[in-house]
């Protein structure tokens, strides 16, 4: 319990006493929001996860791609 409190106060005091850090954290939050909530969601689906249900289907698809001109 004592060590948990120590860890908590390490982070809490660290964040509270930050000067430049606050601007940086705002930038980080903005960046992560754009990356995960906008870009990942809108533009970056995981093709193999979304288009296929099983690993067997994924394997078959890739084999098809690798041999389609033969």
């Amino acid at each position, binding site marked *: 319990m004592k060590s948990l409190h120590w860890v908590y106060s390490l982070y809490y005091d660290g964040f509270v006493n930050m000067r430049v850090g606050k601007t940086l954290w705002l930038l980080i939050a903005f960046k992560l929001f754009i990356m995960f909530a906008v870009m990942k969601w809108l*533009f970056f689906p995981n093709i193999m996860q979304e288009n296929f249900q099983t690993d067997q289907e994924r394997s078959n698809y890739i084999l098809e791609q690798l041999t389609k001109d033969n």
Partner: protein
Amino acid sequence: MEHTDLLVDYSRAQFALTALYHWIFVPLTLGLTFIIAIMETIYVKTLDEKWKTITKYWMGLLAINFAIGLATGIIMEFEFGTNWSNYSWIVGDIFGAPLAIEGLMAFFMESTFFAVMFFGWDKVSKRAHLTSTWLVAIGSNLSALWILIANGWMQHPVGMKFNPDSARNEMENFAAVVFNPNAVSKFLHTISSGYVLASLFVISISAWYLLKKRDVAFAKKSIVVAASFGLITSILMLTTGDESAHQVALNQPMKLAAMEGLYKGEERAGIVAFGLLESEKEINDDLDPFKFMFEIPGALSFLGYHDINAFVPGIDDLILGNEKHNIISVKEKMIIGKKAVQALSDYKKFKKEGNTLAMNEALKTFRATSHYMGYGYLKKPEGALPDVALTFYSFHIMVAAGSWFLVLFILILYFSMKNELTNKKWLLRLGVITLPLGYAAQECGWIVAEVGRQPWAIQDLLPVGMATSNVGSTSVMITFWLFAILFTALLIAEVKIMLKQISIGPEGH
């Protein structure tokens, strides 16, 4: 939807853009953490509060760089899943292990010891704090190790076997992947270049303070640590660069030929010290590859094969073949590659039909030919040639810049020891303006590594055209420009915050 050249080009451009931006932030973190650890060690040894101020100041700039660069690498993970899904599936097992270790290591090291390093000055003992700082330095470098093992495998795939049932490369020998000579030399060369960049960063800012005649004691102390660290790591960088070139010669001879603009292979091949390429030059024509050049005889043979008389194959030899030196042509490799693709197709067909005998026969043919499988997808032999001009100029800018950094570190240390540095305004100015050159050299290094190995996503096994996903090129184009805007904004933010902190200086920090 069919693969188009536009899709492949934009997928590559997007990945290159994110990788190059990501690499603006990473090398500084790799090196600056060690410089800070050295400065803090001096503080703990001497208990001189000035060293604590110095350490905390550079730690502040590290925090800015770290915060802005944080998660820029994650975008590459997005791209693997969306634009490079074929590739991700095919390499999954090989990439999975190193990247998972990297993720865990980065998370635990960075969340734990970074917090102690930044927030723990008054919370833990001096020695515990110093230990955390060193662990941050070591941890961030170990993170890079796993990424570069994955990259090294793409350049020289070892320790795996392609499974024709799952269509994946499966790891057979973890040690072979980890101790892949290409990965080891790449790791050492990359981190040492990061150390050099961090040294230039500290020198550049300290030199600016000295030119402005402010925070002089702080700047003089910082610059000596940085120049000493830079000198030692420059030597490491040059040595590991030599080993990297040796590995390229052994495993990626086309890249070496492109790096030197060498078309006709020769014994006692020279290194071009400087030169201008002939833009009209084509494979196997009579044009001189250079408008003008100055070369150091025998140096390329020595660099590539550690033998001044060794034969270094040129682009013509590698494309058209050279019987005397036992080099088979790309055309022949394409025939072997097509056999491998056909055998894979047959294996799939016979498996479906339940014809075990024919299936095993097809597998045997596949195993005998799969080392050139990637060539089976090339449309013409010239497709095996990377962009010679981009590779050549990037390589020569990197080497020239790296050589200059060594001279700069020596000059700064020399005049620092004579206590004359503050009077040498020309040298201080050179110190300030060399920093952008340091970043340019970093990016050039990656261009050599990645453009030079084209057309391969996995050397000889998978060309980039087969590695991309069947997605719309429009969406890749949109995200390319979104990234360009986002990253440029982040870069401007970093530079502005960084410049503000530099202008405030160590006393007001």
